[in-house]
């Protein structure tokens, strides 16, 4: 294994960290070798979805070629193998995020489903007319709309923690909202639109001191930060596999065991029951009670492989490398005279959101695509964030540990071309 250390001197000078062997790491992601419109792909749309290492692709392929069957029900060998792979991944995911018990890991389709699950099974039964649900002004639509639907149904209100000009949440205002005892605080760990890292320890402490449970959308944190449930202390945390080098269609809801015990069933079906008769049904135990139907077994196997991959590199190494890379990107992009960066949080991860003069982000995106550079142009499913900063859309360059300084340079040269082109 040569992902750590032993970086050849040439790569050392080119890349910000000697800790990771980026050339080797890049060779493990087959798509990074692709040419787009005749140019070498520069993939800077990682906040939308990350690419997959061969290890993850192989795990899914091997599962389907060698070990597929249904889980939790067969007496035959293949069913046992599939169950072992599925439950083994649950254990490794739990360990990866510092869960105390594997039953705290519920497999879902993604962060969106996890938030809907908590809204339906935890908050909904508690919610009365006039109650509040607290979110922040930095949320992705997936952490806004489920709560709006619930408020509409129950005659409850959404309380939104305002965002400062830097793109950070206003913690003073947050405390005022928490003092009104909302039924839950739902907040992201890292903003997908601006890259702001929220001070979760401080937020959870403030919420818990008012008796308010906290649900964290960690989709954008998982690929960048070492995340430890015991250190964060939140009640629920969720994330999507595809944003952390795993497959699409699989995600995780973590819940502290005592919280999960209180959840009413989310969906009814097979696997979530112990016995069914027409007179009544006895539900299964956690975590199965919340995983109705045949699960996305291959997705879980792939997510397990992604967790193994990240564990092999170590999140601390990734964090070090990305801190240096993102600081470099911020500095270089900010140095282009026509560029205006949106969101200048002190603590940030993975994302630089910006505008290029008067050029519309979609035009920037198309010109960059022509040069093989993939960025997101639009509102990033966070329209309230765009509105807060008075812009309809931004260009977003988002990074992963397989990105390099040279790629940042390629991006900046292309941005300079954009300004010339539209002058």
């Amino acid at each position, binding site marked *: 294994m040569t992902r750590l250390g032993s970086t050849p001197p040439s790569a050392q000078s080119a890349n910000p960290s000697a800790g990771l062997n980026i050339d080797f790491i890049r060779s493990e992601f087959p798509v990074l070798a692709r040419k787009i419109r005749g140019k070498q792909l520069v993939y800077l749309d990682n906040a939308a979805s990350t690419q997959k290492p061969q290890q993850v692709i192989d795990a899914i392929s091997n599962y389907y070629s060698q070990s597929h069957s249904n889980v939790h029900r067969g007496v035959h060998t293949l069913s046992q193998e599939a169950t072992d792979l599925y439950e083994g991944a649950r254990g490794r995911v739990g360990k990866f995020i510092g869960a105390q018990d594997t039953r705290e890991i519920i497999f879902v389709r993604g962060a969106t489903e996890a938030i809907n699950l908590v809204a339906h099974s935890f908050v909904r039964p508690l919610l009365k007319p006039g109650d509040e649900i607290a979110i922040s002004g930095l949320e992705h639509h997936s952490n806004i709309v489920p709560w709006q639907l619930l408020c509409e149904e129950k005659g409850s209100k959404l309380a939104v923690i305002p965002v400062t000009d830097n793109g950070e949440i206003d913690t003073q205002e947050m405390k005022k909202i928490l003092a009104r005892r909302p039924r839950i605080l739902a907040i992201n760990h890292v903003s997908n639109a601006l890259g702001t890292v929220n001070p979760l320890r401080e937020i959870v402490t403030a919420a818990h001191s008012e008796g308010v449970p906290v649900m964290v959308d960690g989709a954008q944190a998982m690929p960048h930060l070492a995340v430890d449930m015991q250190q964060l202390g939140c009640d629920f945390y969720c994330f999507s596999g595809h944003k952390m080098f795993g497959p699409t269609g699989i995600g995780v809801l973590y819940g502290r065991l005592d919280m999960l015990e209180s959840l009413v069933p989310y969906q009814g079906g097979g696997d979530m029951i112990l016995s069914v008769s027409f007179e009544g049904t006895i539900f299964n135990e956690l975590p199965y009670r919340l995983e109705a139907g045949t699960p996305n077994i291959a997705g879980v196997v792939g997510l397990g492989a992604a967790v193994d991959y990240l564990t092999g590199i170590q999140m601390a190494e990734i964090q070090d490398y990305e801190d240096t890379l993102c600081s470099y990107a911020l500095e270089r992009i900010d140095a282009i005279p026509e560029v205006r960066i949106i969101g200048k949080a002190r603590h940030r991860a993975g994302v630089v959101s910006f505008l290029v003069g008067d050029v519309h982000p*979609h*035009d920037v995106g*198309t*010109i960059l695509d022509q040069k093989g550079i993939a960025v997101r142009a639009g*509102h990033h499913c966070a*329209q309230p964030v*765009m509105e807060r900063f008075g812009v*309809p859309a931004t260009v977003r360059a988002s990074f992963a540990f397989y990105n390099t300084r040279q790629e940042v340079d390629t991006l900046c040269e292309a941005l300079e071309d954009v300004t010339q*082109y539209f002058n």
Partner: protein
Amino acid sequence: MSELTELYQEVILDHNRKPRNYGEMENFSGQADGYNPLCGDRIKVFLRLEGGQITDIKFQGTGCAISQASASLMTEALKGKSVDDSNRLFEDFRSLVTGNSPNATSKSLGKLMAFGGVSKYPVRVKCATLAWHTLKAALEDQGQCTTEK
């Protein structure tokens, strides 16, 4: 950069920089708001109709160069045209930008031929057609439309 020059032709860049027939209209006979929820582009089209003829047309909006230039060039092309002509032109324009262009000739489309490059960028087709969808709604005076229809 050749495909790009084909997409962002000088006439498109020019109309994006200096949109023609831009502004509000009083006493309009038709008006509609167009919105592309995917990218947030917005276009408002105002029309004055007399005896089946578009005697005046204006637009307002925000969005990418393709959407704004398309609106500007559309207003230029339609002033003085009949409603039937404008419907035909929309069909030809749609064929041009989607790449099935048996009818798309410079004879019928004139300056609108500048949008031929759009067909190589399928995600940008909605940017080019937003103004036209909005026009259609304004002709029917429906008030609003989106490209998601």
